[in-house]
């Protein structure tokens, strides 16, 4: 993909054709995978909506409102459009959408967001409708040209054929005529049985440029006259610069400028090497402020205290107090999950060019309109004077739903003449994240004389991310993300209570992490369910299965995973199998069986993961499989080793040597089994992560008899 500036003439034409939509941006490769400037393309003749443009040359451009961070949206979204538009995936080229909440808002969140495993769910119908609308108009244009009934015309691979006579017209030839037709209000969508593309393992459209080094991420931006900066923000949240040695930094060859903004210092240079050396030479002294003495233990203490009080009731069913009081046996447990870094492979970076009358931003963002808004706020420019160029994201996982690094880059850019690319070092990235919050959960259950659960109480204690991020979604003191999955407990238990205690610990910024609420809650719920099975001396699969008679989809994935994994078959000593089940707001049902080996020294080796998935209608089975494989591996990193800790207000982890993540030699076999389904599509980017920690913890219990109620596993199994 090559960035370019649209000429004034192109701009006007595009603006008009798009019906007021601002269609800037750049192409994401072309059919052969070679990057070409979009400026070479003629203005589109036909643009019935913000997602499709067809030129008189037949070129079909699809505008990608949901961003590509590995999860395959730049293949699944085009599949939705192409299915109804009747073009081949080999006939389309893709373009990153510009920021525009009016045109591109995610229907679940109301703004332009890619997160929460919502792209296919949210756009399954709108994008098919966009394709069908364009196809309907092109077919109508052909029928009009030939003066025949539209019903006698068929579209396929970008060509309309008049079936009785065999006459054909290409979409390119029809584009100008179609553009003059009224946009129909209602169009018929295909019956799923007629799908020819949806449901097939179509090849990823972004892969060619990702194997030859041509894919452009935000960090790859190069502009004439561009400087490169690296930064140090206060290592303690809320700290300020107390002093620095500017002269020493300026003496490094290639260093051009020091920008001291009080809470952050940037060294602006000719290249990153000079900038890094300059930053080290500054020897910044910090005034830590009020958080300078905080440690992880303080955070846990705060959460524990908060957990003693009842919370806002998120779900209630039956009479919990009576059910617990009348139970033959009561079981209580406290579960904890740590702060986590996303550690995207591409560190945070943003290129900006701030001028008197405008601002341009180049970055990779999961939330483009927020990136644009923050640049407008910082500069005081009107929104329309801020142009944001999106890129491929070198990992998102929720980190790029924030825009703190964009805000910072624009503040720096205001002090720099010409364009500047601000690149965080890995250390800066790991220590200035928006982390997955620390959660602290109190569980209680009552079993009847036969060991069956009659009461289930789940108290979740943690921050309300949505109260900050999406205030309309934070209602009556309830954060729907924090309690996700917990409120959808699928087991048939007469009395259920789920509560949320909001407790903020403003010593670290926190946000969504792959798997969001369910990543925390499913670990707690499925580990605790395993505890109940153990207390009842029941087989973990059978115990769950007996509680799922009313939820056939859940029972079916459980059966499938157990069967495929060979549940019950003997294992060598030191090995164990664990099972977990997942259902949440995403609408997908998953069951997973993990097989682990725990060495005498307490090291965990994950040998095999079997995952059964019912995510409703599947757009691309190979991408679903890949997302489960990847999600599982992401989950293993977090469960076994992932932990961000605080000491003296500072994050103790700094790079991959002390923030351990899964590597090739540790990666298990992952087997994915998809359940054919015609139900509505469910989310799939995250559940593989969410279901993995409990499956591992339960497998560890099976192997060792040790119940882990706190993540990560790390050295908890080490023999003393």
């Amino acid at each position, binding site marked *: 993909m090559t960035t370019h500036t649209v000429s004034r003439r192109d701009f006007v034409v595009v603006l008009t054709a798009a019906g007021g939509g601002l269609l800037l941006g750049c192409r994401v490769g072309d059919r052969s995978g070679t990057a070409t400037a979009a400026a070479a393309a003629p203005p589109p003749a036909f643009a019935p909506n913000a997602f499709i443009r067809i030129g008189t040359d037949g070129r079909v451009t699809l505008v990608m409102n949901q961003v590509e961070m590995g999860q395959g949206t730049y293949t699944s979204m085009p599949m939705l459009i192409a299915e109804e538009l009747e073009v081949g995936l080999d006939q389309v080229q893709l373009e990153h959408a510009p920021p525009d909440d009016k045109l591109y808002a995610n229907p679940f969140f109301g703004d332009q967001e890619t997160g929460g495993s919502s792209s296919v769910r949210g756009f399954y119908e709108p994008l098919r409708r966009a394709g069908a609308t364009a196809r309907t108009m092109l077919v109508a244009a052909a029928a009009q040209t030939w003066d025949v009934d539209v019903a006698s015309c068929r579209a396929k691979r970008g060509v309309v054929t008049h079936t009785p006579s065999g006459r054909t017209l290409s979409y390119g030839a029809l584009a100008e005529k179609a553009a003059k037709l009224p946009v129909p209000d209602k169009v018929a969508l295909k019956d799923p049985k007629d799908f020819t593309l949806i449901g097939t393992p179509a090849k990823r459209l972004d*892969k060619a440029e990702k194997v030859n*080094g041509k894919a452009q991420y935000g960090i790859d931006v190069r502009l004439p006259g561009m400087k490169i900066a690296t930064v140090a923000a206060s290592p303690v949240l809320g700290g300020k610069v107390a002093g620095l040695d500017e002269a020493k930094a300026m003496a490094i060859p290639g260093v051009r400028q020091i920008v001291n903004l009080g809470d952050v210092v940037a060294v602006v240079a000719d290249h*990153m090497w000079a900038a890094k050396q300059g930053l080290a030479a500054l020897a910044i002294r910090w005034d830590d402020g009020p958080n300078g003495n905080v440690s992880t233990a303080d955070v846990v203490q705060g959460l524990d205290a908060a957990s003693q009080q009842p919370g806002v009731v998120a779900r209630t069913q039956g009479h919990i107090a009576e059910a617990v009081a009348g139970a033959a046996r009561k079981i209580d447990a406290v579960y904890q999950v740590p702060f986590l870094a996303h550690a*995207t492979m591409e*560190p945070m970076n943003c290129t900006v060019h701030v001028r008197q009358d405008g601002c341009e931003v180049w970055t990779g963002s999961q939330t483009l309109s927020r990136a644009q808004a923050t640049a407008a706020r910082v500069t005081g420019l009107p929104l329309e004077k801020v142009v944001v160029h999106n890129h491929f994201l070198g990992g998102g996982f929720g980190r790029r739903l924030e825009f703190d690094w964009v805000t910072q880059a624009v503040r720096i850019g205001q002090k720099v003449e010409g364009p500047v690319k601000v690149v965080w070092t890995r250390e800066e990235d790991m220590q200035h994240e928006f982390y997955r919050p620390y959660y602290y959960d109190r569980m209680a259950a009552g079993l009847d004389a036969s060991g069956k659960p009659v009461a289930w109480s789940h108290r979740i204690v943690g921050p309300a991310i949505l109260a900050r991020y999406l205030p309309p979604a934070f209602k009556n003191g309830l954060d729907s993300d924090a309690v996700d999955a917990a409120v959808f407990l699928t087991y048939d238990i007469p009395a259920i209570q789920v509560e949320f205690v909001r407790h903020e610990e403003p010593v670290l910024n926190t946000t969504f992490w792959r798997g969001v609420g369910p990543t925390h809650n499913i670990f707690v719920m499925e580990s605790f369910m395993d505890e109940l099975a153990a207390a009842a001396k029941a087989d973990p699969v059978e115990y769950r299965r007996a509680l799922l008679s009313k939820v056939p989809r859940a029972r079916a994935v459980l059966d499938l995973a157990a069967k495929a994994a060979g549940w019950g078959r003997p294992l060598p000593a030191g090995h164990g199998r664990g099972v977990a089940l997942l259902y949440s707001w995403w609408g997908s049902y998953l069951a997973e069986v993990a097989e682990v080996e725990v060495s005498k020294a307490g090291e965990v080796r994950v040998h095999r993961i079997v995952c059964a998935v019912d995510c409703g209608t599947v757009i691309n089975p190979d991408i679903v499989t890949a997302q489960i494989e*990847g999600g599982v591996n992401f989950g293993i990193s977090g469960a076994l080793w992932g932990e961000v800790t605080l000491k003296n207000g500072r994050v103790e982890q700094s790079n991959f040597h002390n923030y351990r993540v899964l590597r090739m*030699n540790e990666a298990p076999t992952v087997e994915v089994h998809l359940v054919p389904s015609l139900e509505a599509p469910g989310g799939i980017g995250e559940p593989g992560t969410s279901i993995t920690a409990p499956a591992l913890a339960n497998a560890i219990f099976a192997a060792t008899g040790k119940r882990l109620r706190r993540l990560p596993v790390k050295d908890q199994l080490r023999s003393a």
Partner: protein
Amino acid sequence: MATLNINGRDVTVDVPTDMPILWVLRDVVGLTGTKFGCGMALCGACTVQLDGQPIRSCVTPVAAAAGKKITTIEAIGETPAGKKVQQAWLDLEVVQCGYCQSGQIMSASALLAKNAHPSDADIDGAMSGNICRCGTYPRIRAAIKQAAKGA
């Protein structure tokens, strides 16, 4: 001034001799296919080949490349092993976010160039220095085996 041989071409650059090859490639020469990930040789995103050996360019100074040939992701497809590896990556749909894949492909190509039929242990040995946060490891392993089959 240093003259580097990059992808078969001599390039003269005015940089300090201790400057890591990574930043010379990315910020001076303009070859951005080689990625920055950690700066400490911990993640492998910056892997390039120096006379066919995989090296972490984020910690290797330009001085170490004197008289040697640097090959990057932009040209690895011109080598027999690199071509096979790239094709296998495409055939098995390996990539997700793609950011680490330049480094993965550079490590895998170096492995196959010297070991036409690597075992699982050989793959672990050659690839464990390359982190993929998207977790594409199962497909990377399968793709290396497929590329080896085509040897």
